[in-house]
């Protein structure tokens, strides 16, 4: 299985751990990734608030590079995923937008490159049966709240990712790894990620609602697939403690990091040392089985 892999800006900065774990896991699962040379920012999350044509053009520049490679594009950032899909939609449904974007790029782009999320290709292309065969360790019944957030699933007509109100793709992966994907109500609530620096007061409230619900649902950790959700839910637990006195200590772990653990990879290789809330308890829980 060969794909063009679009890392997104956060891969080099706040989501280095997502990048490391995705690239570690992929080859072991027989997935080959080629990065488009000179990929650039897709324009998320701010360009659409300022200039519609700019936001579509920035995403399209990368889609055009991938079109030249003749492959599907795989994205591991939910925010990039959303912007790429929106750009394809805008270009293929609005001839005027296509014209403006083509003029900006200096070449025509028709909106035809298929955009997929890493989680999607595990379920849809690889299949859970083949995925299970590659596993070396089990999550040992670890209770995981899979948190999908906004951008993977909405708006459903454009994102077309799983079920928009009750997605289960990540839960299926957790279950396949011997964990328990919890049925909980806040899978697609918004954590306020796009306001994280400008309105941290609001973000603290939105994040706490999600983390508290995960805890009440019995979660030992939250699994995520979006860099903005990850850093937000992880970093803001300290502010939640300071403003409300509530201590959650809830590890926010990328789904790819959990996959890597079950494939026998080291914590270092998966960037688990970069998480702000220590995943030590979760790791001990899983690893007790590996040692015995």
């Amino acid at each position: 299985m060969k794909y063009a892999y679009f890392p997104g800006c956060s891969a080099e900065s706040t989501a280095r751990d997502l990048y490391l774990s995705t690239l570690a896991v992929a080859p072991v699962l027989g997935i080959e990734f080629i990065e488009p040379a000179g990929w650039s920012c897709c324009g998320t999350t701010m360009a659409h608030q300022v200039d519609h044509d700019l936001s579509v053009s920035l995403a399209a520049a990368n889609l055009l590079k991938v079109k030249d490679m003749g492959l599907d594009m795989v994205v591991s950032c939910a925010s990039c995923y959303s912007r790429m899909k929106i750009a394809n939609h805008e270009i293929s449904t609005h001839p005027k937008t296509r014209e403006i974007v083509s003029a900006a790029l200096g070449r025509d782009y028709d909106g035809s490159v298929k955009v997929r999320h890493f989680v999607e290709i595990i379920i849809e292309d690889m299949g859970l049966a083949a995925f299970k065969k590659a596993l070396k360790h089990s999550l040992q019944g670890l209770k995981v709240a899979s948190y999908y957030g906004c951008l993977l699933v909405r708006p459903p007509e454009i994102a077309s990712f799983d079920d928009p109100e009750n997605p289960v793709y990540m839960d299926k992966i957790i279950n396949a790894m011997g964990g328990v994907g919890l049925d909980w109500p806040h899978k697609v609530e918004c954590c306020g990620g796009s306001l994280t620096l400008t309105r941290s007061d609001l973000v603290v409230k939105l994040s706490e609602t999600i983390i508290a619900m995960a805890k009440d649902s019995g979660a030992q950790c939250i699994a995520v697939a979006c860099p903005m959700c990850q850093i937000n839910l992880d970093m803001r637990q300290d502010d939640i403690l300071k403003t409300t006195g509530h201590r959650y200590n809830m590890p926010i772990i990328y789904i790819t990091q959990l996959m890597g653990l079950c494939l026998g990879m080291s914590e270092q290789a998966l960037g688990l040392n970069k998480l702000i809330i220590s995943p030590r308890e979760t790791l001990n829980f899983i690893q007790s089985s590996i040692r015995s």
Partner: protein
Amino acid sequence: MPIRIKKEAVKRGIINRVKEISGIDINTCLQCKKCTNGCPVSGYTSSSPSEIIKKLQLGAGEELLDSEIIWTCVSCATCFSRCPMEIDMGGVMDALRVMAAETGAAKPDGNMPLMNKILLGTIKTFGRTYDLGAMALYKAGTASYMKDMDKVPMILKKGKIALLPSQGADKKMVKQIFNNLEKARKK
């Protein structure tokens, strides 16, 4: 809650401009309020998505651009996803943001227009976003140095933010996009 708009507002309503920018027809709104009920921030701001739509329909003018929700909207698209009439409320919000920036409307807490400008500036320069640089410029621009300052050393130590801007992007292409769009607009 009664919705009030100024009497003279009818003449200078901005609904057509919203449609012109976004391509979205909000006149099909049924006021079922599914958008407002699902909105994660409407409980924390002084107005709501359904109220913005009603005010636009009633002929609200530029005073609407001062509404706090225009900048507290998190672009989560819950409203659009649940709207029975498939109105892309996020797209309406984007149009209102463009207009608010044009007219220099009041900015509520957290200067989102400045944040947007700085982040886009880093993309124009480096071809990719530069978080740490953008954070520093935003803090300088809003004189909010102390807020979140405890976070920076921690995420730097963890290697959870890049110290330097990325150098790998096709900068020529990105600059070309910015320049071509600017030229097209001037025509």
